[in-house]
């Protein structure tokens, strides 16, 4: 067994490939030793990942990141709306929107969404939807029920779809939840969605609402907007792609 002792191995000329091993060989970094580099590529030159040298990775191969990929985050701070106008396409069959710390500026406002087909910009697609809710008051008096709610549903309506109604605007009052949008780029079928939110109802009660329906168009959906029915809002909304 031959062994070479040196501190540096370089190619004979600058910027040439330095090749380790031959086909069928194993190149071994001895256990206990560490391999340090910023970019790892496969033998075809495709980047697996790149680090900036501070542990922050980019260009990570999609197979390493799992199947639920954070696409973008919108942070609304006393904003009129939060819109996702890029990233909704045929890349994923399922888009998940997660809502955290949704707090309206106006008490009793509804948290809502609408979408645009690719040929539209006015957030007024036709929706048919169903909703039911379970609610319970802090006092234990009055409301303790689960029931269909005719208020937020739509029958071929073009209004913003209510995901949570009568949200409290107190300093500690908020909502959280998620919305699933299926196959938005499909040009054959309507676009189904369902979601659920848990929130602080304005009259000091816990409310859990379930919403489902379809956007009644065969045109692809590529924009989605979230806003309160009146007034501004604080919220963090994250869009994920799954698939």
């Amino acid at each position, binding site marked *: 067994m031959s*062994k070479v002792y040196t501190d540096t191995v370089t190619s004979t000329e600058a910027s040439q490939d330095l090749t380790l091993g031959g*086909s069928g060989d194993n190149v071994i970094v001895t256990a206990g030793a*560490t391999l340090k580099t910023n970019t790892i590529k496969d*033998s075809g030159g495709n980047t697996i990942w790149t680090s900036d040298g501070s542990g*922050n*990775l980019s260009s990570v191969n999609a197979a390493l990141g799992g199947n639920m*990929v954070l696409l973008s985050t919108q942070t609304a701070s006393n904003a009129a709306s939060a819109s996702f106008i890029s990233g909704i396409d045929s890349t994923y069959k399922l888009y998940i929107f997660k809502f955290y710390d949704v707090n309206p500026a106006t008490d009793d406002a509804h948290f809502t969404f609408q979408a645009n087909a690719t040929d539209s910009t006015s957030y007024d697609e036709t929706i048919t939807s169903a909703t039911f809710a379970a609610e319970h008051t*802090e006092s*234990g008096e009055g409301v303790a029920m689960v029931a269909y709610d005719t208020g937020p549903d739509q029958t071929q309506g073009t209004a913003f779809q209510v995901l949570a109604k009568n949200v409290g605007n107190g300093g500690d009052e908020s909502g959280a939840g998620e919305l699933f949008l299926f196959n938005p780029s499909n040009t054959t079928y309507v676009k189904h969605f369902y979601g659920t939110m848990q929130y602080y109802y304005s009259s000091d009660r816990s409310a*859990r609402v379930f919403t489902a329906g379809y956007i009644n168009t065969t045109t692809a959906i590529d924009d989605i907007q979230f806003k309160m029915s009146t007034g501004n809002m604080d919220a963090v909304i994250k869009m994920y792609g799954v698939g």
Partner: protein
Amino acid sequence: MGILRTKTIEPATGSTLTLGASGDTITVSSDSIKANTFKDAGGNTLFTSDGAGTLSSVNSGLVGSGPILISTSTASDSSSIDITSGIDSTYDEYMFVFTDIGPATNGANFGWQVNADGESGFNEVITSSAFTSYNDEVHANSYSAVAYQTAYDQAQGTDLQRLASLTGSAADEPTAGVLHLFSPASTTYVKHFYARANSYYYAYGGYINDNFSAGYINTTSAIDEITFKMSTGNFDGVIQMYGIK
């Protein structure tokens, strides 16, 4: 082009062996490269393997947005599972997947409670709603409905928040489901949660109980600990805590 044929290259001095210069490409023509620890040029660990294929210290950029498994807790005839680390501001949402939850006592309720930062006793104030969808195992659709359950909810209560009620203790009657806890590290808002659990009702020949519970922990203090337990007696089960970024 020069070829150096050798089996081992080691540092002549110190413990650093440098391959290539800035701008060069190091090509490994062999079929694999074997190393247990990968770091970037700044010395930040990207992942470490134990040599048996089990990775640790995996850079968050390599694991995606989640759900990311944080911890697994196993109860074996235990009075509770207490998760006292890992709940912080790292994730916006925590997801607890509970499987094979089997009580020692027939008819026990399975639930959870939390501690705010610095608190103990697992007795935070909760307001919640609860409803079930159920069906009779023996008399199909004779006792089937969707109904609100006033015994399972809380109005500013500090009790165990039920995930599944009146569960069966037989070996084939465990409970399973998922609890979502949102923004537990917030010091501005109350802490919302919702859960769905599938359980086996213990009496009358057995029911499928699809348990929906939701509510808020009515505190603006951060939540950093959670316990899962039965209302009475011990239990078996596995609880996995995931984070979602």
